[in-house]
Structures are given as C-alpha cells and as structure tokens.
C-alpha cells in the first residue's frame, strides 16, 4: 500500500533545490519520482530562480557617489538599520498626567460619538425602472420608495454614470451626471424620467438629496440599466460595459456578467476572453475541465474564421489574445497573422511594444527605443496611445532623459487628459528631475488649484459632497508635500515651509509625513522633521527597523525625555486624526452566522466588548484570495494587541470544497459563514475583500476598506483610544 503524501509547496521545492538538509528532502525526492505535476513545478521554481537572478540590472549612475560625498560633506548623517528587528516589546501606554487629562476629554469625545452621526444612508430604498430593459435612447420612468433618511425630502436627484461601448474597465475618470429629478408624489413615493443618451449602453444610478449629504446607493450595488434589444435581451456591449464597471467594484458580479455573456452570446469571442481572464485571475485556469473547454472553444472559432468569411481586424486581435495560453500552435499562427494583417490593432500594438524590450536590454540603445516608440505612437489607435506613452514616459524617466521625458509625459497627459491621477503622476515625476523641476512645480500648483473647486462630474455615485471635499483635501495635502520637497530642492525654503506646513496640518497620511520629514531635513528644520519622525514611529504600519532608527535619532538629538514627549504627542495626534474620520453606526437587524461545524452564533456576541476586525471575503473573488496572506498577517499582528480578527464568507453551509480551500490557503483566522446574508446586510457590505472595524461598544467605525494595512491602522487607533480613555479615567480617580 502506498502512503499518501501531499504535493510539496513551491517553498518546499525551493528548499529542495537549495540542497538544504531537511527531513522532508527524502520524501520529496521519492514523491518527485512519481509525480509529473511536481516535477513540472520543480522545473518552474528552477526557471523562476534563474530568471530572478538574471533580471537585467545596470550599475548605479555615476552621480550616486558624488551625491554620497556631497551629503557627507554637508554633514548629513543617517542611522542604518544594522540589526534585525527585535520582537516588538509589550508597550505600556501609560501617559503623563497632563496628557491623560487631555485624553479624558479627547478620547471620551471620540469614543462616545453618537451612532446617529452616520453620513451614508444605512438603509436602502426601492427603485423601479419602466421599462426595465430599455432600448438605446429610450425614455425610462423611475419610481422610488425612499428609506426613512430621505423620506422627508420633496425633491431628490437621480445621479448616473453612463457608459458607452468604448469605455474602459474600472471607473476612474468616467464622469457622473444628474440623470433626473425625482419629485415626491402624494403616496410618498418619488417619480421622474430618465432619457438615456443614444450612445449609452449601460448606466449605473444612485439617489441623493439635493444638497448631496445623504445618498442611497443601494448598499453599493447601485441600480442599473442595461440597454437591450427589442426582445428585452441585453445588448452584448451592455454586458461588456457592466463587466468593465464591476472591475474594482465587485469581482463576483463581474464574473457573473462574464458567464451571462457566454450564455447569451456564445459566438462572441470577447465573452470567452472575459471568461478566460476570470479563470486565470481566480487561479482556475489549470483545472482540466476549464482548459479543455477553452481549447475546444478556440478550435471552434478557428474553424469558423478559417472556413467562413475573412475575420475583421478586431477578430484577428481577439483570436490572437484568446489563443495565448490556450493552444500554443494556434496562438503562434494568429499572432503572426495579427502582426501581418492588422499591425495597428490594439493587441498588435501591445505585442510590438514589448517585443522591442529584448533589443533594448541587449543593445541598451535607448535612443533607438524612443524612435521605435515614436513609430508606434504614430500608428497606434487612440485607445492604445496611453499604453505606449505610459511605457515610453517610464523609460524616459528611468533614463533621466529630460527631452524624452518632456515629450512623452506631454503625450501621456494628452492621451488621458481626463484622468487626474495621470496628470498628478506626471507633475510629481517632473518635480523630481532637476532640469524639469520648474515645470513640475508649475504643474503641481495647477493641480493643487484645481482641487480647491470640487467638480460635480468627478464626484463618485456613492460620495457625498463633503466626502468629495475631504478626498480632494487629502489629495491636495499629498501634492503639497511633493511641492514642498521640490521647493526645498530648488532652495526656495520659505515657500517650501508654507506648503509643508499645510500638507501636514490635517489627516493621517504617512506618505505625506515622510515627504515633509525629508523636506524638513533637507531644509535644515530638524525640529519639524522629528515631529514627523515621531508620527511615523507611532504608526503601527512602520517597521521595527524604522522605529529603532527613529528612536535612536530622536534620543540622540533631543534627549530621552523630550523625545518621549514627542512620541506621546504623536500618539495623541494619531488617535485624534484617525478617529476624526471614523463615523460610528450601529449594527442593524439580526446578524447570525454559522461556524464551520454548523453551530450558530450572533456576530455581535462574538465581538462584544472588544475592538475587533471583521473581514468579508470570498473564495470566488481574485483580490479576496490574493489578500488571504495579508489577512493572516493582520490577525497575527492584532492578536498581540488583543484585537480579534474574524472572517465572514458568503456561503450558506460548510462543504468539503470550502474546508479544502481553507486548508490549501493556510487560512488561520476564525471563519464564519453568512448563511442567512444577515451579516452582509447588517454591515451594508458588498464586494470583497472588505474590512470593518467594530469598536468596544459594538458599533462599526470608519467606512469599509479593502486594505489590510489600513484596517491595522484603524483598529489600533480605536483600541488605543479606549486604552487612553481608560488611562485617563484611572488617572482621574487617583
């Protein structure tokens, strides 16, 4: 009888290749003899190791040594992280009496924030469209039953994000607009009419009051219209745009849309490309059944295009793309055909763009590469130009070629003028290049100016007016920090101080603090630099190595007592600034969940009295799967502070497949099942992964975040607020 042995992980195969003596070595060797899959995996680990070692690197530019010597000559001193981080000591948060008194006021005020201070609507109305499946350009009647929060209004606005067939995935830069005014009728319901513009194939809606302080976005789901044919079947372009819209919003809905596309339009190649992409993102492309089905589908399309009328250029591009990774010989044939017959198709442009990397690496001839990019730019369709410009601009910046940087960043901005983040990125890059610094400073100032007046069409469907202002203020502070650094580099210290002081005046953004710290150091303002250093040191996301060097520096410059007062003040600021943006809302309704053994628990009971983090995730969502290691890390880190992390999965019952998945992914966090969808309703949650912080009074604090790091910072801030409040109260009793 053969003993069963699980397949070794990639890390174990890595150890095996490293010849490290290990008890599992003999077992792995025996297993490899019998398992082709693991032999393939071992070969892949070997290839990755060799590829990683061979990643082309050049030498540091000649100016680095000069910079080093100049820094030394100007008395710049840095403390290097020479020791591994020691295990984090248990911290004592006892505060000085004065700080405690301050916190008694501050912490109390923050923690006891009333649950009614919620900005976003926590209950949803009911909205109906007639017809529900309109044709292009058709008028649609809207009937809306509001939740209590909006019921007393006389007039509401229906806002929309309209998508035409050419919009890209994700929603950045797609404007929002008021689609209709809704008026209250005698029965308390609101009515209005939307006339869809002719070009729109898909539209997403939310309802808000006229001052944009209360929004009903159907708990993130929004309401939607898919333009349909005369029989009520959604147009292919409508589904395609729905999938684009779901990118970054809801993975499972995106996947469901792809499945619907293939069911309704099995002869649309693009539908199968969507499916293949989702299979790949979900790590299921290796499943035999999936691989076989894509291969069969590819063969069918290949046969149609070979025997029928000649394919269009778009068809050729899509065939070449779909065939990659599905069938290598078919892929090679279609790729050759694409480059020959449709060299300016967007897929062909991508291939041509990256095909040149080889010669760039070998010949290191950047001038030739820029000439090649010029050619591609001239022939690329408008939709591909951003990609070409983005690549060439990156190359120019890396090569520190000012002429090419100016040329390509200008083209990049022209290609995507409506994308603010592209413009801000360009301004930031220019401000860091000495020869283009003045241009960069001017562009940064333009961007900062543009943020002073919120643009209505750039307000998200789920965003109140004050939230938009807050978002702009955050962006402005980040840009001000960059501007401050550039001004310091230019020697313009007075202007830099103004910019930096405003940059760090509000909010808790470690990127801003770091920039201000660097600029202050460069400008010789050690005191303010150390204020920023102390803020970075108290942030739980900072590394031990950073904290060690910060403490050494602070103690050396200020002495232990003063440095401790800096740290104490920074901690007060941390709690105050983090919690300034943390509205509280109570959990509504029931919130029963089941554990993996089928026992029922009340979610509130699981967290009661403790600051906790609740993570919603799904094994059918790529980003959620990708975040599992981060969730494990978060749980381990917060366990040291006594903050439990609980995960909730949108599945009704435990299954062997789910158990196997949890084992395979080493999920080490307590897992509960949202059997009755009560937890997701109570949290008003949609889309995974989403992290919520529950405070010690059982209320949800902050809006959801999809970042484990941010969840860590938030949970620590709430925990610290309670701890400071307790400390202050104890101090008061003494």
């Amino acid at each position, binding site marked *: 009888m053969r003993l069963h042995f699980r397949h070794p992980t990639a890390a174990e195969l890595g150890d095996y290749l490293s010849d490290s003596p290990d008890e599992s070595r003999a077992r792995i060797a025996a297993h490899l003899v019998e398992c082709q899959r693991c032999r393939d995996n071992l070969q*892949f680990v070997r290839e990755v190791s060799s590829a990683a070692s061979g*990643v082309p690197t050049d030498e540091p530019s000649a100016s680095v040594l000069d910079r080093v010597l100049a*820094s030394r000559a100007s008395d710049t001193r840095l403390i290097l*992280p020479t020791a*591994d981080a020691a295990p984090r000591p248990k911290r004592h948060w006892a505060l000085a009496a004065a700080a405690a008194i301050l916190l008694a006021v501050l912490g109390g005020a923050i923690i006891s924030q009333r649950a009614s201070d919620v900005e976003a609507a926590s209950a949803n109305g009911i909205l109906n469209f007639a017809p529900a499946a309109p044709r292009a350009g058709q008028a649609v009647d809207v009937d809306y039953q509001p939740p209590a929060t909006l019921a007393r209004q006389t007039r509401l606005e229906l806002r929309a994000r309209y998508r035409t067939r050419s919009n890209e995935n994700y929603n950045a830069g797609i404007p929002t607009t008021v689609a209709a005014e809704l008026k209250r009728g005698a029965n308390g319901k609101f009515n209005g009419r939307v006339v869809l513009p002719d070009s729109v194939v898909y539209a997403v809606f939310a309802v808000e009051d006229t001052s944009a302080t209360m929004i009903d976005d159907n708990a993130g789901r929004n309401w939607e219209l898919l333009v349909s044919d005369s029989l009520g079947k959604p147009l292919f372009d409508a589904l395609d745009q729905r999938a684009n819209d779901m990118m970054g919003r809801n993975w499972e809905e995106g996947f469901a849309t792809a499945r619907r596309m293939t069911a309704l339009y099995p002869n649309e190649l693009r539908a199968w490309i969507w499916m293949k992409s989702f299979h790949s*993102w979900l790590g299921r492309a290796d499943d035999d059944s999936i691989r076989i089905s894509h291969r069969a589908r590819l063969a069918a399309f290949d046969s149609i295009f070979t025997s029928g009328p000649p394919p269009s250029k778009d068809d050729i591009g899509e065939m070449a793309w779909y065939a990659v990774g599905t069938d290598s010989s078919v892929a*090679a044939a279609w790729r050759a055909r694409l480059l020959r017959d449709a060299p300016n198709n967007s897929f062909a442009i991508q291939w041509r763009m*990256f095909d040149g990397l080889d010669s760039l690496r070998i010949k290191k001839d950047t001038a030739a590469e820029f000439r090649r990019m010029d050619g591609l730019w001239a022939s690329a369709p408008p939709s591909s130009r951003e990609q070409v410009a983005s690549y060439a601009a990156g190359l120019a910046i890396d090569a520190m070629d000012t002429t090419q940087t100016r040329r390509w960043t200008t083209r990049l901005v022209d290609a995507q003028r409506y994308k603010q983040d592209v413009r801000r990125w360009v301004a930031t890059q220019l401000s860091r290049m000495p020869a283009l610094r003045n241009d960069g400073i001017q562009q940064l100032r333009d961007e900062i100016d543009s943020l002073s007046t919120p643009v209505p069409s750039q307000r998200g469907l789920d965003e109140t007016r004050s939230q938009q202002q807050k978002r702009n203020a955050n962006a402005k502070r980040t840009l001000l920090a960059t501007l401050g650094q550039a001004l310091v580099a230019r020697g313009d210290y007075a202007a830099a101080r103004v910019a930096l002081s405003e940059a760090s005046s509000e909010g808790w953004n470690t990127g801003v603090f770091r920039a201000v710290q660097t600029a202050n150091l460069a400008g010789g303002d050690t005191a303010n630099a150390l204020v920023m250093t102390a803020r970075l040191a108290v942030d739980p996301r900072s590394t031990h190595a950073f904290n060690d060097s910060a403490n050494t520096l602070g103690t050396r410059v200020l002495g232990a007592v003063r440095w401790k007062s800096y740290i104490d003040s920074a901690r007060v600021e941390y709690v105050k600034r983090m919690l300034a943006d943390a509205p509280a809302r109570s959990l509504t309704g029931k919130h029963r969940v089941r554990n993996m053994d089928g026992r029922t628990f009340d979610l509130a009971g699981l967290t009661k009295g403790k600051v906790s983090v609740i993570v919603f995730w799904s094994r059918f969502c790529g*980003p959620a799967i990708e975040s599992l290691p981060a969730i494990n890390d978060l749980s381990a880190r917060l366990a040291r502070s006594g903050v439990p992390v609980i995960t909730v999965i949108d599945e009704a019952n435990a299954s062997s497949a789910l158990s196997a998945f949890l084992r395979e992914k080493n999920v080490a966090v307590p897992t509960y099942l949202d059997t009755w969808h009560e937890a997701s309703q109570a949290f008003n949650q949609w889309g995974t992964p989403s992290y919520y912080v529950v405070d010690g009074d059982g209320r949800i604090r902050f809006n959801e975040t999809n970042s484990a790091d941010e969840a860590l910072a938030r949970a620590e801030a709430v925990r610290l607020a309670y701890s400071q409040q307790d400390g202050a109260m104890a101090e008061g009793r003494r």
Partner: protein
Amino acid sequence: MWRESSADRGALTLPHLIERAKSGEPSALADLYGRYATTLYQTAYRITGSRSDAEDVVHDLFVGLPSALKRYEDHGQFAAWLKRVTVRLALVRLRSDRRRSTTSLDDSHTLVSQDRTDSRANLDALQQKIMALPDTLRAVLVLSRVEGYTHDEIAALLNISSAASRTRLSRAIDMLRRSLL
C-alpha cells in the same frame, strides 16, 4: 583633492579601509563604494523594483556607513554584513512606499503574455512578471532564490514568521505561474 591614485587604494587591506571609513574619510568611502556599490545596487533593485529607489538605498547606505561601522565587528564577513544592511534599507524603503504594492493579478489582463514557444520571450515575460509582483512577495522571492537567505533569516529581516516567509514564496511562484498562462 581627496582622491587617491588607484595604486594607493589597491595597497589598502580591507580592515584598514574599514578603519579609515569609520572616521568618514571620503577616499576610503569612495574605495568601498567602488568595490561593493554595483552588487549592492543590483540587490536593492531586485528588491525595490525601481532604479531610483535602488540608487537612494545605495546613497543612504554609504552616507550612514561611517557611523554604522563604529558598531561593526569584523569577523571577515564584511560583504555579507554590507549586503544585509542593504537588504534592510531596501525593505524599509518598500514599506515606506506602498504605491507599488498595488500591482495585482489584474496585470495578466493588460500585459502581454508571450508565446510559449519562444524561450527568450518567455524569459523576458517571466522577468517582467517577477518585477511586477507585489513588493512583499518579490522581496521574499529575491531574498530566498537569488540572495540565498534561509526562511529563518528572511523571517528575521522582515519581522514575519518563518512559515509566513514560506507562504509568501509559494504564493509568489503560484502567482507567476498563473500570470504566465
């Protein structure tokens, strides 16, 4: 002029050079830079995925070196010590710049997958994907598979558990495999 002739520099033994660098002597620093900077820059580049970050790491390393050397005890492992400090600096820089960690599996949608029959293109594609890995994964991959650190050593450098280091390596390799399909 502080620069010495190469003959003078060549005459110095390493311990002697280290002693002189401790006092911040520019020529000694420049000599150490000449010996080690390229290798250290390459290590920093593989970890940070950015040339400018790698140059900043090398800059910071040599600016801080004289003070750090005062705490350094020479056991004939100077190059390994220097590399370890470089790795730590690069990791600090990664932590301090979360912007790059947003690269995800999504890139398989926008980046070109190369034809598997072309081995050179395959290698390029693989290297592109390695550099596009999330920072936390690429760092472990590079430390383990290029720099040869054990998982216990990586755990100490990153302040994670040894098991987490292994998990990240496995995850990095799984992600690469999937992204190349």
